[in-house]
């Protein structure tokens, strides 16, 4: 065991870790930040997505030691300073972008990274970017709608033609 430090959600934190400790396990068991979910634990489902130095990664597929001294943002770091939901999180609630909620932390972290890269993505761009985040409840339509709404685009006609 080694003492491992990094900056998580703006605070410098440390906990014990082994060489084989995954970043997802370090966040959940080491730091008690259980908002990061582990779904498949094989790098497929995206529930564990966090940002490392500003970029989304699958935390179940990264060794914690490899992110020593990095800046990590988890879902716990996404709300506004006063604790209210961020625009993106609020949009997930307003547009029913979640049902069971298990995939939601990863969805929000990936969607936030997308909006950082591309502030007004098209529906196709959103679907393509979220390819590595699997949801088994919503059928994705309301997630896409939430991300579009959070980017300030009109979503009133989204999906109407298909219905």
């Amino acid at each position, binding site marked *: 065991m080694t003492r491992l430090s990094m900056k998580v959600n703006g605070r410098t934190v440390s906990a014990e870790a*082994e*060489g*084989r400790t*995954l970043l997802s396990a370090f966040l959940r068991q080491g730091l008690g930040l259980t908002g990061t979910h582990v779904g498949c*634990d*094989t*790098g*497929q489902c*995206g529930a564990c*997505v966090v940002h*490392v130095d500003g*970029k*989304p*990664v*699958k935390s179940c*597929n*990264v*060794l914690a*030691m*490899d992110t*020593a001294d990095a800046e990590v943002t988890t879902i716990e770091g996404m709300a506004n300073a006063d604790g209210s939901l961020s625009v993106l999180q609020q949009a997930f609630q307003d547009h029913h972008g979640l049902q069971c909620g298990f995939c939601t932390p990863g969805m929000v972290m*990936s969607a936030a*990274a*997308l909006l950082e890269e591309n502030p007004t993505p098209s529906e196709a761009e959103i679907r393509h*970017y979220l*390819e*590595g*985040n699997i949801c088994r409840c919503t059928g994705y339509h309301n997630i896409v709608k939430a991300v579009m709404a959070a980017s300030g685009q009109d979503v009133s006609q989204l999906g109407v033609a298909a219905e």
Partner: protein
Amino acid sequence: MYAFDFVKPSSIDDAVKALSAEGAQPIAGGQTLIPTLKARLNAPETLVSLTGIAELKGVCRDGDVLVIGAGTSHAAVARDAAAEFPGLAALALQIGDPAVRNRGTLGGSIANNDPAACYPAAVLATGATVVTDRREIAADDFFQGMFTTALEEGEIVTSVRFPIPEVSAYAKFAQPASRFALTGVFVAKFAEGVRVAVTGASEDGVFRWTEAEEALVRSFAPEALADLRVPDGGMINDLHGTPAYRAHLVGVMTRRAVKAAS
């Protein structure tokens, strides 16, 4: 995962030194290696991370060659190679998903030589040179069959030198769950000829389709390939596709790549 020690050197020299120890193995982005470790299919005593070595990262042009550091992520290649070598940038953008592309690296992909990985097709189709800590290896000599390369124990890929083609394109039929290539074809046209490399299809890993290359030299058009077929023998047979299906896809994806490139 079995327990292992973890070290993270900041120079190639230190990494090579660390890798000379008994039971030491390199780890780049880890997008294949970490799942392999979880499945206990591999048990290194020490993992030597290559992610802290700045000299392994970056894309730069050297005359007619694009030099890409082995530690450059797929996302960085997709962004930084787009102007100089759009065919390669487009390939990088099709690997995995955005989060995987932020971790996975060029060097990790070709050193692993997964028979369904995307990068080996580009390296072989451009006749690239693989540069390691100790020598330069031609692409035609580097890939030696499924998960097998010319690399020696402890040898690290440091960069890949890609000759920039006049035109090129990668056409991939993605396996929808894994997003690996069920079959992927990279076509590269140079003044001196055309090279076609196929990934995802053969039990021997990436290979050149020389009959297609000869036909495309005569006429760089999808129609030039109309009568060509690769034999089914030696194609991968798994639950995603039969050898005959993959052999068929080789033709389809090659024609699509030529169309996209021309």
